[in-house]
């Protein structure tokens, strides 16, 4: 994102809109820090500028990743899905992506409201890879991996900053404790924040085995969450 200094009237109206605080006043004009800006276009699409001096120029690779990972209205070419992740459990009644006995996990970097460099994402993905998780093939972060067996992201993307990037993976429920412990350790080494989520298919009696495991291990989880209510068709064998 850029601001035309010849047109800016220094009204400061755009400053609070930036999700990563990348706009500041320098003398008589507002300036966007290009290294910190994630090209989410919030400042532009808010329509807050009274003189229309904010503009966006599509960037070449790898900076182009900033918009696709930061503006949920942008569709990823590879996944055909807008936003940062996949349909994950939202369509599990139809896709059968998450079977009984398995845990789906997402680590959503940069959220809420901090942003992330891909180097932090790569650091955690490599730890998860060592514990044998299966990375979601349709996830945009997975597309950036040099090798899904190591979890390492391509060198040329590591310094790119985005509003959010999600690692999505799958593993047998027996590995849950081991992976939680590994995640706790690597969490101490990242510069940004990440929100952690876990997915579980309900048993026939309606209970969630993972919830029992969370309670047993004393891992806190929110009282609120998401539930697929099984209205999708055709019904997956899951």
């Amino acid at each position, binding site marked *: 994102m850029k601001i035309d200094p010849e047109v800016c009237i220094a009204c400061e109206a755009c400053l609070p809109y930036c999700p990563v605080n990348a706009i500041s006043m320098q003398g008589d004009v507002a300036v966007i820090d290009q290294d910190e800006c994630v090209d989410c276009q919030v400042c532009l699409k808010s329509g807050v500028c009274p003189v229309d001096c904010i503009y966006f120029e599509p960037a070449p690779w790898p900076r182009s990743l900033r918009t696709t990972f930061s503006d949920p209205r942008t569709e990823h070419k590879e996944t055909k899905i807008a936003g940062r992740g996949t349909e994950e459990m939202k369509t599990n009644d139809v896709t059968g992506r998450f079977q009984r006995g398995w845990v789906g996990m997402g680590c959503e970097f940069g959220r809420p409201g901090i942003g992330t460099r891909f180097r932090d994402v790569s650091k955690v993905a490599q730890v998860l890879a060592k514990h044998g998780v299966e990375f979601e093939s349709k996830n945009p972060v997975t597309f950036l991996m040099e090798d899904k067996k190591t979890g390492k992201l391509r060198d040329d993307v590591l310094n790119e900053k985005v509003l959010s990037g999600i690692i999505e993976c799958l593993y047998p429920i027996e590995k849950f404790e081991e992976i939680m412990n590994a995640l706790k350790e690597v969490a101490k080494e*990242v510069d940004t924040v990440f929100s952690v989520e876990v997915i579980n298919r309900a048993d026939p009696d309606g209970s969630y085995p993972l919830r029992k495991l969370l309670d047993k291990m004393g891992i806190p989880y929110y009282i609120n969450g998401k539930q*697929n209510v099984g209205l999708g068709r055709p019904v997956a064998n899951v």
Partner: protein
Amino acid sequence: MTHSLHRRGTRESLSEDYVMLCLPAVGVNDEGHAPKLKKFLEIAVRYDPVNIGAIKLGNMYSHSKEEVIAAAQAVTHAVFVKPEQVASVLQDLKEADLGMSVVVSGIFENVDKCVEKAGLKHHTANFSLGIWGNTKRLPSDDILEVATMCGHAMISANLIKSAVDEIKAGRKTPDEAARMLAPQCACGIFNPARAAKLMAAMAAK
């Protein structure tokens, strides 16, 4: 795309916050899905949602409800403040048999009651284990309670602070301040009614 999962708040506050999503599975049942998502939104608006959205266009605070419904495709959203509304929408959706996946976000036990009342069974759950990593960089909890209602983080902490300042200065009511934030959340999962209450409390401090 876990944009409705990590909403933060007290039990009292979250008890007035329910997000419903309707979507097809890409490559499985997405052919001809747009009219079904429109039907979902038409059903939702019967029960007075505080927000609806279609990701390709925006929400009912940036466009009219009719425009949002007409733009339904990919994924659509509706936000309610009472479990009774959610139960009613689920009952109508069961009858409509759209074949699209439906997800409800909210306090688990409250949502379970709605699902049961509609004669449905929960299928798969997504639990939030909270925020990890360098949490010293986070804004204050009261800011996060408002900010996490836009899961794509399109509503900045600074904009929330500005909105609270507007309330404090008497230039905006809490409802007006919430409407200042709502258009930024393109998906339409932001709950302006809850945001107004939270920001009124922040302004009163």
